[in-house]
């Protein structure tokens, strides 16, 4: 039996009195990329925050590679080699590129090797280690966020709307990097997106979240996937 990279069972979570996730269940296999789609305010970001441990779970369980992390604090979940890239304030703007990348590792050992690998993914990083992250362009900052996530050689990556506001060329590069990472290291990914085209390009499967509930699940290779997703997003 294959142990899922991520498994949510009947998860309920939210902010103080507001319940956002209402019995969410989903499963991601090792090496699988799942896109989580939905309109604004449907609970996508909340789901990622619940998985990483920022939000308490009122019901249900969260397992990462078979380990029950339901009530673990965020730093313990992350140390299971779970990389989380939030949508906003995802970088330490006043720290250098080097320091942001160092924070992706549990120790400085292995930095040179990791950095060399990241310059292959994102050539703009070469020779700019001392530059402050806050001075990078929007697209470069998003790529640095992904590079930091990949530095730790994660088993599972959680990415929140990485394509928002980016040029098509940057989106294409990010898609290529994520697929290459999966192909090379078998990394599982949960990608929260509103960009359906990017989701279909990168992911193996999709889920649609509506008002805190999963309302559709399918394979992106299914010819009717885009139609199903769009119909769910329009309702």
């Amino acid at each position, binding site marked *: 039996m294959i142990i899922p990279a991520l498994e949510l069972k009947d998860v309920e979570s939210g902010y103080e009195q507001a319940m956002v996730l209402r019995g969410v269940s989903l499963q991601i296999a090792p090496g699988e990329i799942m896109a989580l789609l939905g309109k604004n305010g449907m609970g996508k970001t909340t789901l990622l925050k619940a998985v990483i441990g920022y939000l308490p779970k009122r019901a249900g369980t969260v397992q990462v590679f078979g380990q029950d992390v339901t009530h673990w*604090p965020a730093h313990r979940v*992350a140390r299971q080699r779970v990389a989380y890239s939030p949508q906003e304030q995802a970088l330490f*703007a006043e720290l250098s590129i080097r320091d942001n990348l160092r*924070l992706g590792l549990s120790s400085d050992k292995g930095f040179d090797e990791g950095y060399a690998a990241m310059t292959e993914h994102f050539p703009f990083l070469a020779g700019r280690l001392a530059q402050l992250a806050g001075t990078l362009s929007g697209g470069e900052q998003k790529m640095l966020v992904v590079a930091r996530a990949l530095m730790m050689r994660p088993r599972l990556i959680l990415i929140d709307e990485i394509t928002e506001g980016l040029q098509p060329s940057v989106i294409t590069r990010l898609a290529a990097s994520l697929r290459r990472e999966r192909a090379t290291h078998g990394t599982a990914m949960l990608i929260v997106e509103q960009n359906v085209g990017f989701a279909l390009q990168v992911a193996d499967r999709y889920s649609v979240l509506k008002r805190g509930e999963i309302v559709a699940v399918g394979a992106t290779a299914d010819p009717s996937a885009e139609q199903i997703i769009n119909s769910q997003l329009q309702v």
Partner: protein
Amino acid sequence: MALLLDILTTVAILYAVASGLLLIFGVMKIINFAHGAFLTLGAYASLVASNLGLSPWAGVPLAILVGALAGMVVELLIMRPLYARPLDAILATWGLGMVIGQLITLAFGREVQFVASPVQGTVNVWGTDYSAYRLLLVVAAAVIGIGMAALLTRTRFGLITRAVIMNEQLARGLGIHSGAVRFITFSVGAGLGSLAGCLITPLSSVDPNMGIPWLMNAFMLVMVSGASMASLLLATLLFGAIQVVVSTYFSPILGGLAIVVLAAITLRIRPKGFARD
């Protein structure tokens, strides 16, 4: 020349006192109003070392040890349960300061006591004879400042601490145990407060309330400095110099008010004080 040396040594003392408070404020986003009590603990550690007939220098490690241990206990038992309630945490440090003051009174009495300086005599600086111990304090403050800067910018622990200061939630999502960072920081900050108390002991009397005026000045300096060691140095240089000038040429009482008044005016004009935007 004497005035310049007075300014230099006053700035050094203020910086030594405020640095631990700033460290705790930077990481925990709370003002530790027990800092004055930690300073007093350090002074009494120095007094105990002196009364035991130990080397005059023995007070320094003893003060650091006492302060850091007290900081560990306080962080574990008082601060940690109040992380989610910062206002309550600040009030708790205020109450804790009073409790520590009362415990010191119980143990040592209310009377004013004195500790001899480990360094006697004067040094001639460009024609001016000046207290060797006060000059030594400049070196001590420089060591504290450089040591803290090196810790924060040259070590992995410093990087992690800066990450927690800048965005604690993001840091936790990267696997950083921010609770451990808070514990270490609070302990180091308390230890620095006690060290400062030990260092200023030969310059002033020792009594259970000696930390209060130092706390007020350090508090105002931290308020105008944000969480930056460089801003703290700038604020301390500027306000410390004015304090000495006012004390020398006008009145020591007015001089004692200078930092509080200047900080209040600065914050009124520029709410961020000396911190960068």
